[in-house]
């Protein structure tokens, strides 16, 4: 019995030893290949190899790798350390020592250093006071650093562009997503297009405010992607701020046909999101039909999410049913007042767009047309009287659109009041009129903010975005931001998003980008961000953002804030 116990003890000892061998060897420290955790670095013996005291360590390693592993490895190292290498020569700054050596006193410091650099196979590119910018072959770095006239050899300091990030990124919580790896999705696979009028200066912002590479295409007749306009560039900056990983397309146009061609091309490119901060007037009935809304529908039918600015026209808008209480043929805006007036600062172009509810039937290409004929007249206030300036008297006798337009070519030299009047030429019913004014300094007389959506914000296929303030009074409504409903009674906009945000000085600058033009790219970027990081489909992403929106104004979706301000955090 005792003998058996002794044997058992021996056997169990052997078992333990064997178990230890089997279980520990695969994970033991002896064979561990993985790098230590950061916090454990101090416990790992490191062979110190600092190199010459007067040579930057990266430059020292560059020469060492060049000599021990060859030029290719040295260039790889240089690329990692962002050393500026041409061939085998690296650009350095040589700081000369304060005291001159004898030869320098005789020949001059620059000459002595230049001779030394040249003897090493390099060259002096530039100098300023004690600093010399040189190109030195890898093999000469250590020797140069040993020159008693040299105080230190280092890579040049690197300038960095000041990055400007929209304040809307933090407000919406987009920043929380930026370091999150996509889950069963591909951020880089999301294509976002800013479809706009011009992208001036975009080329100067590549790699900083914009992705390093963007796809550009102009559908303008002159092919000018810049088109003297920074608006598109600023919008692209905001999309990039919100969704840095997206593939970005910058596409511009100038006419409605170019617009259509641009969208066809974007469909062929399988773009996912169009950020659209452009407005059209007199281009449809306000019920989501017409050529521009048709283009939006065409994009949506092909899987593109169209995110559009609601418009900045809430204070520029009037609508109401034609009324002629004094039976003189002119619409009475209120009582006997037949002119709707507004104040225009000197030099500001004035315009007016009138349409009414007699578009007929939209067949996907044309409206059947109007037979109710109204005309538009422009006046200005001079010497205590309204003086006639211009008129628009289109025919509406069956085929034409129910629109009149007096355009932007008036640049008054004095600040004064201007006004529009509407006259019934031939109509069998009192139509519902809608007037958009441009150039007004503040809200037009008899302002009706409701229904002031620009086209195509009225489209059911467009996610229409209104503007809220971001910095000064966060989440307050910007009074210019266009409101719903659409002319067929749908609640719009769908969301509001930040405005009054900072972009680069090459566009609108610090806190300089206002309007729903700034809001739409935030929204587009937010949608693309969530789509690129998650496996949700567009409908689900949209539903999630609807539920996360910061509900402002009346509870639920309303005609001022939509579902609320864009919010991508929980």
């Amino acid at each position, binding site marked *: 019995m005792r003998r*058996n116990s002794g*044997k*058992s003890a*021996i*056997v169990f000892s*052997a*078992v333990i*030893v*064997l*178990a230890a*061998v*089997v*279980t520990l060897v*695969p*994970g033991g420290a*002896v064979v561990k290949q993985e790098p230590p955790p950061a916090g454990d670095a101090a416990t790992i013996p490191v062979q110190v190899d600092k190199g010459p005291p007067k040579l930057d360590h990266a430059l020292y390693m560059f020469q060492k790798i060049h000599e021990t592993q060859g030029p290719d490895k040295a260039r790889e190292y240089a690329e990692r350390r962002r050393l500026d290498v041409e061939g085998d020569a690296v650009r350095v700054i040589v700081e000369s020592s304060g005291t001159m050596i004898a030869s320098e006193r005789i020949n001059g410091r620059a000459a002595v250093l230049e001779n030394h650099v040249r003897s090493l196979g390099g060259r002096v590119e530039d100098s300023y006071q004690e600093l010399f910018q040189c190109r030195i072959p890898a093999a000469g770095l250590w020797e140069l650093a040993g020159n008693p006239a040299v105080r230190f050899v280092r890579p040049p300091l690197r300038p960095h562009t000041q990055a400007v990030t929209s304040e809307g990124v933090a407000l919406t*919580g987009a920043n*929380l*997503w930026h370091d*999150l790896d996509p*889950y*069963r999705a591909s951020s880089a696979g999301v294509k976002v297009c800013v479809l706009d009028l011009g992208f001036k200066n975009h080329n100067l912002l590549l790699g900083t405010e914009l992705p390093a590479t963007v796809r550009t295409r102009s559908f303008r007749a002159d092919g000018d992607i810049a088109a003297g306009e920074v608006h598109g560039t600023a919008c692209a900056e905001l999309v990039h701020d919100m969704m840095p990983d997206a593939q970005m397309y910058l596409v511009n146009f100038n006419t409605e046909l170019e617009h259509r061609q641009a969208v066809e091309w974007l469909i062929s490119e399988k773009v996912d999101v169009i950020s659209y901060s452009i407005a059209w007037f007199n281009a449809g009935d306000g019920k989501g039909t017409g050529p521009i809304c048709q283009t939006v529908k065409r994009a949506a039918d092909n899987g593109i999410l169209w995110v559009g600015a609601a418009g900045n026209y809430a204070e520029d808008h009037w609508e109401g049913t034609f009324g002629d209480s004094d039976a003189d043929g002119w619409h009475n805006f209120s009582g006997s007042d037949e002119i709707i007036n507004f104040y225009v600062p000197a030099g500001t172009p004035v315009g007016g767009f009138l349409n009414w509810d007699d578009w007929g039937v939209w067949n996907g290409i044309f409206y059947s047309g109007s037979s109710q004929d109204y005309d538009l007249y422009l006046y200005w206030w001079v010497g205590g009287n309204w003086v006639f300036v211009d008129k628009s008297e289109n025919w509406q006798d069956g085929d034409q659109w129910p629109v009149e337009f007096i355009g932007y070519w008036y640049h008054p030299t004095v600040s004064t009041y201007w006004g529009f009047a509407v006259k019934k030429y031939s109509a069998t019913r009192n139509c519902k009129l809608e007037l958009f004014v441009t150039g007004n300094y503040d809200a037009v007389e008899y302002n009706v903010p409701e229904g002031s959506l620009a086209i195509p914000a009225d489209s059911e296929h467009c996610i229409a975005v209104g503007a809220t303030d971001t910095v000064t009074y966060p989440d307050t409504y910007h009074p210019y931001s266009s409101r719903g409903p659409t002319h067929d009674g749908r609640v719009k906009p769908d969301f509001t998003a930040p405005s009054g945000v900072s972009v680069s000085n090459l566009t609108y600058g610090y806190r300089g980008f206002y309007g729903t033009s700034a809001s739409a790219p935030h929204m587009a970027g937010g949608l693309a961000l969530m789509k690129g990081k*998650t*496996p*949700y*489909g567009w409908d*689900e992403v949209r*539903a*999630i953002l*609807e*539920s*996360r929106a910061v509900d402002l104004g009346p509870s639920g979706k309303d005609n001022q804030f939509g579902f609320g301000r864009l919010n*991508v*955090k*929980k």
Partner: protein
Amino acid sequence: MKRSIVLLPGLAFLFLTCALPAGAGAQGLGFGFAAGYAKPSNSLYSGSVAGGVVFSIGVMKYLAFEIQAGYLGPAVEASEDGLSEGRLTVVPVQLSVQGRFPFAGGRVAPFVELGGGYYLNSFALDSNLAKRWKDVGFTLEEKPGGAVGVHFGGGLDVFLGRRISLGLGLKYSLVTMKAVWSLLDDASRTEVTGELDGLTLSPLVVGLRVRFFFN
């Protein structure tokens, strides 16, 4: 040095087996424990400690049945088509038939085995990963399902007496599992789910076991 660490206990083990009394050849009922190391064939899964309990029935000198319930817990490295970063827990319940070839008076019995089993799998996402998604308002889950597998292997049992044996074995299992993943928006309860097919586990287990017999 390392070689001697491995060889010395091995030699000691062989010496002891020769000095032991004759065994019963594992006939009758047996119960025991196993411990070892498992390395799934999938390179995304780390090796892990393995362990379990064993029930055996020796029906004749050359034939035995064994039921083993085990455990292994490999860490998982994320991949596009596989699980995310985290730790997998696998509980295999295996039935084996063993062909045994005792010699030295039944003291030593090499064996080969073949069988099948059901693998109960669970998965714990890396806590940082889960937290980062939680921070943006989503609950991320990945749930592997159970899987059927087959295994084969062999080893050596050494009987230290009529009622106790010590064994060293190697077992390879062919197991492929499926998993479902889900991402849930905590606010809207909008959920997206998907399946992961063809997740190869197939562990190779090397281990020791000690068994006690009731014959």
